[in-house]
């Protein structure tokens, strides 16, 4: 209540003050009447001014007045020098904005990676582990059911496995991503369909027994035009007619970072969407990626212990399948089976980078403030002379810094708000659907940004405030000396700021250079197969309802037609494209004469490929032969291994003619292929083998075509061929393997771009800062320069003198930067590919770039120094 009255008083100050004056005058008048003596009355009233001030102080405390006054003066000062204000605010906005944006991205990925899912802090990811393997594995359905039965600490187990199908949009086929989920999925994550229903508990069981699906809001709008009667309609997915039972809410994209899910089907439909047949009763089929929701109050460690115990029991109960297998729980942001884990290192680097940018920006603004303080030295000294306390001056300077920081923070938060969805840039639109990645500005981001703002205020405000401690009053009033405010002390401080800026910029340049070189190496690393002149595409026969024999006929016909096309050198089918998201088939193997260590089950990945695959892909065969048409389902089982597999399992011996057991079937090795990259360009050589597609049939393999023609040309020719064979089929996009390679490295590209952009920004800010310092130094010593000129120094002498000062600063900054960079770039370690963190080429180039920037920045003030008119200077 009192506060409200105070506010009212504040807004009516003048009137209230007038009223009080009138009231007191009335009182005085009456006193005068009573005593008849005007002077006595005046004496009794005492100091009216003091009484008025005391009365006012009742309503508005004294500090309020001074702060208000500071704000008004500060704003007026800033308005008077618009150039400085705009530059300062711009620097701060960029610095604080970049920080806030990265905070919000990190916070989103870290804490709430899945929009609309409730209580994500209780969710954990669950994977299997295998002794002897470093990578986590999936979990099998029977194992999961047993885990569920035996767990008390976990509230629910949720299956969410990513898969895809093809939906034709127009005459093009598009990959549409979906998830196989357990029946409790929607309830467990707290997302409720806006139309229809989620899945019912019974829909988990039965082989392909429940062809129902929940579709996403986006799919509903895009494909079904928001049809209000959508519930109950059907959609063919992978050849099976599914009934649409629900529509998910808008803004829900599933639980997979980096992909937007368009539809969900229950676990019972697993066989329709996954390769390798019906797995729900196979304890050895580890295909499930899952989450768990902990009961309230349970910690990860407790749950992990419980899971380990249950896993141990399973290992004992089912030694054939579960030997050496364990269960691992992961915090959400470390989920191994989605893209968050790959994102986080990049984001961490970004955070360091933006902090650097902020420091550089603050240093810049600090320098600007120092220059202004110099210009205002007369004002300051006069105020001191009149009687302002030093603390009062300090308060005013701090307030000015606070205004700048506050405006910068507001601008920065706006920038961050606009950029909050920019994280999506890291994930290109797939299937016409753009992701919505969380980057909400919430209280955590605001709190951090406020802290940053406060920090920068202190840095900025203190900078000129420190100067005011060294005022020489008498000297200033004489208006003779040039460096009355500060002089020696601030010169060191300013130089220090510049050195810091230069060193930070240098570190950023080195970082960007290393990342760039790493990207370059990645892109030029030969993946072991041809990237130019080979195209890939596919047709989804599964979703068109083809069965195996029909698909076989189609594939044969297709291959013949494609090979007959002009410009096609060779073509081949294969199950999987290298360097794509999906994973290769894998199988435990056994080799004659190879005894694996106990408790270890050697498992190797493989690809099912058609005849001419190696010739088409450009993978050389070290020995033996390719698959031919003769290696079909009636012939003997054969396989081709790669060099690493040969050396690991047949040490020294020639593997050709030897046998290897894959999924219970023995195959004869007929060739050894050169190693290539399979899953990712950055992987280390690993064992891998190939089996003929005919003997391990897949309905929808990928088609590889070796041709010098462009993808667009081939696309139209291929479409025609496909249509001739079946008018209902649509072709997937036709891309070159180079494009495939580029897509697999796009996160690195984005990282380099972001760091590069910010690094250039930092360099620019740094150059501005250097320029500012040099200008200031020149203006400070203008008398000295004028004197020298008068005494006969040449222009080039002066140029050299001024430039050397600037370049010395730069040199100091670079030295410091080199030291810091040598220490810090170690942290980039795991992001760098075949690039040493101390690569001399990168350091050298950064040095050159920095020097050029420094010379450019110093040149202008130096040149201006040579143009000074000595007579005018000496006269002033």
């Amino acid at each position, binding site marked *: *209540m*009192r506060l409200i*009255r*105070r506010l009212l*008083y504040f807004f009516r100050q003048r009137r209230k003050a007038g*009223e*009080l004056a*009138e*009231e*007191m005058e*009335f*009182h*005085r*008048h*009456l*006193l005068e009447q009573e005593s008849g003596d005007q002077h006595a009355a005046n004496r*009794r*009233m*005492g*100091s009216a001014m*003091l*009484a008025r001030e*005391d*009365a006012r*102080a*009742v*309503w508005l405390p004294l500090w309020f007045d001074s702060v208000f006054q500071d704000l008004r003066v500060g704003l007026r000062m800033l308005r008077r020098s618009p150039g400085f204000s705009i530059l300062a605010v711009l620097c701060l906005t960029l610095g604080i904005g970049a920080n806030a944006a990265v905070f919000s991205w990190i916070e989103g990925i870290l804490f709430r990676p899945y929009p609309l899912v409730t209580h994500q802090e209780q969710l954990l990811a669950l994977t299997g582990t295998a002794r002897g393997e470093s990578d986590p594995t999936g979990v099998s359905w029977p194992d999961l059911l047993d885990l569920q039965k035996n767990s008390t600490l976990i509230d629910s187990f949720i299956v969410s496995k990513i898969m895809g199908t093809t939906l034709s949009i127009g005459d093009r086929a598009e990959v549409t991503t979906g998830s196989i989920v357990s029946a409790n999925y929607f309830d467990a994550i707290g997302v409720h369909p806006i139309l229809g229903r989620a899945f019912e508990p019974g829909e988990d069981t039965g082989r392909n027994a429940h062809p129902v699906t929940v579709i996403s809001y986006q799919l509903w709008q895009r494909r079904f035009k928001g049809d209000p009667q959508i519930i109950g309609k059907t959609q063919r997915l992978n050849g099976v007619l599914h009934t649409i039972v629900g529509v998910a809410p808008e803004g829900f994209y599933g639980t997979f970072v980096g992909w937007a899910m368009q539809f969900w089907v229950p676990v019972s439909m697993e066989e329709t969407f996954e390769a390798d047949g019906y797995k729900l009763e196979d304890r050895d089929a580890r295909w499930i990626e899952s989450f768990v929701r902990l009961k309230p109050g349970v910690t990860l460690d407790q749950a992990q212990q419980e899971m380990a115990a249950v896993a141990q029991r399973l290992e004992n109960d089912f030694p054939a399948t579960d030997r050496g297998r364990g269960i691992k729980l992961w915090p959400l942001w470390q989920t191994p089976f989605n893209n968050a884990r790959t994102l986080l290192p990049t984001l961490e680097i970004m955070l360091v980078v933006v902090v650097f940018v902020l420091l550089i920006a603050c240093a810049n603004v600090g320098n600007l403030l120092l220059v202004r303080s110099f210009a205002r030295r007369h004002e300051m000294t006069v105020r001191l002379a009149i009687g302002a306390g030093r603390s009062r001056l300090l308060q005013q300077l701090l307030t000015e810094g606070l205004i700048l920081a506050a405006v910068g923070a507001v601008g920065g938060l706006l920038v961050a708000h606009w950029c909050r969805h920019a994280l999506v840039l890291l994930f290109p639109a797939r299937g016409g659907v753009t992701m919505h990645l969380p980057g909400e500005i919430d209280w955590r981001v605001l709190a951090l940004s406020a802290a940053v703002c406060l920090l920068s205020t202190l840095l900025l405000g203190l900078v000129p405030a420190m100067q005011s401690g060294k005022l020489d009053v008498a000297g200033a009033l004489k208006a003779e000396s040039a460096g009355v405010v500060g002089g020696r002390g601030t010169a060191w401080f300013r130089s220090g700021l510049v050195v810091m800026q230069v060193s930070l910029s240098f570190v950023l340049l080195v970082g960007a250079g290393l990342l760039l070189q790493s990207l370059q190496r990645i892109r030029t690393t030969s993946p072991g197969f041809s990237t130019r002149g080979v195209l890939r595409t596919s047709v989804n026969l599964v979703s068109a309802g083809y069965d195996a024999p029909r698909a076989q006929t189609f594939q044969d016909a297709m291959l013949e037609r494609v090979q007959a096309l002009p410009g096609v050198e060779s073509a081949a089918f294969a199950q999987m494209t290298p360097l794509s998201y999906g994973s290769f088939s894998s199988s435990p193997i056994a080799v004659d004469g190879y005894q694996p260590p106990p408790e270890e089950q050697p498992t190797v990945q493989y690809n099912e490929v058609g005849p001419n695959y190696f010739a088409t892909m450009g993978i050389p065969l070290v020995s033996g032969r390719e698959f031919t048409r003769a290696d079909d389902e009636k012939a003997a089982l054969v396989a081709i291994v790669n060099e690493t597999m040969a050396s690991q399992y047949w040490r020294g011996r020639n593997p050709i003619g030897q046998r290897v057991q894959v999924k219970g079937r023995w195959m004869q090795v007929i060739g050894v292929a050169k190693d290539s990259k399979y899953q990712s360009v950055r992987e280390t050589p690993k064992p891998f083998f190939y089996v003929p597609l005919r003997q391990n049939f897949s309905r929808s393999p990928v088609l590889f075509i070796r041709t010098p023609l462009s993808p667009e040309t081939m696309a139209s020719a291929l479409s025609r061929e496909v249509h001739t064979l079946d008018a209902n089929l649509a072709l997937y996009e036709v891309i070159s393997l180079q494009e495939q390679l580029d897509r697999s490295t796009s996160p690195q590209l984005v990282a380099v771009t972001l760091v590069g952009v910010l690094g250039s920004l930092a360099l620019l800010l740094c150059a501005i800062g250097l320029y500012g310092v040099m200008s200031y130094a020149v203006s400070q010593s203008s008398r000295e320069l004028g004197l020298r000129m008068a005494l006969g120094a040449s222009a080039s002498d002066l140029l050299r003198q001024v430039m050397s000062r600037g370049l010395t600063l730069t040199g100091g900054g670079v030295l410091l930067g080199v030291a810091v960079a040598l220490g810090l770039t170690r942290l980039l370690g795991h992001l760098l590919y075949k690039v040493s963190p101390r690569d001399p080429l990168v350091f050298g180039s950064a040095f050159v770039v920095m020097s050029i920037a420094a010379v450019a920045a110093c040149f202008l003030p130096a040149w201006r120094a040579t143009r000074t008119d000595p007579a005018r200077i000496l006269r002033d």
Partner: protein
Amino acid sequence: MLILGSLTRGPRHGYGIAQHLKKISKDVLDVGESSLYPALQRLLLNGWVTAEWGASENNRRARYYQLTASGRKQLVAENREFDRMILAIQKVMSCA
């Protein structure tokens, strides 16, 4: 408290309050004007009095202060507190 007390019988203006106090206490309580007005402002801030402009005895504009309900309550409370103080001081002094 004194100011509040002087308003119990009806509104007064500043001069009137000072005169009243002086008269009733036979010149013992001589409130300085420089402390009277700040005190009145404090009472206004706390909502214990309200002020209104009105015509004085000689038809000049004067500001009249009036007790509010909470002001009366405050007066009662302060009175009680004051009595307690007096009693305590008396006790101390009589034992000394």
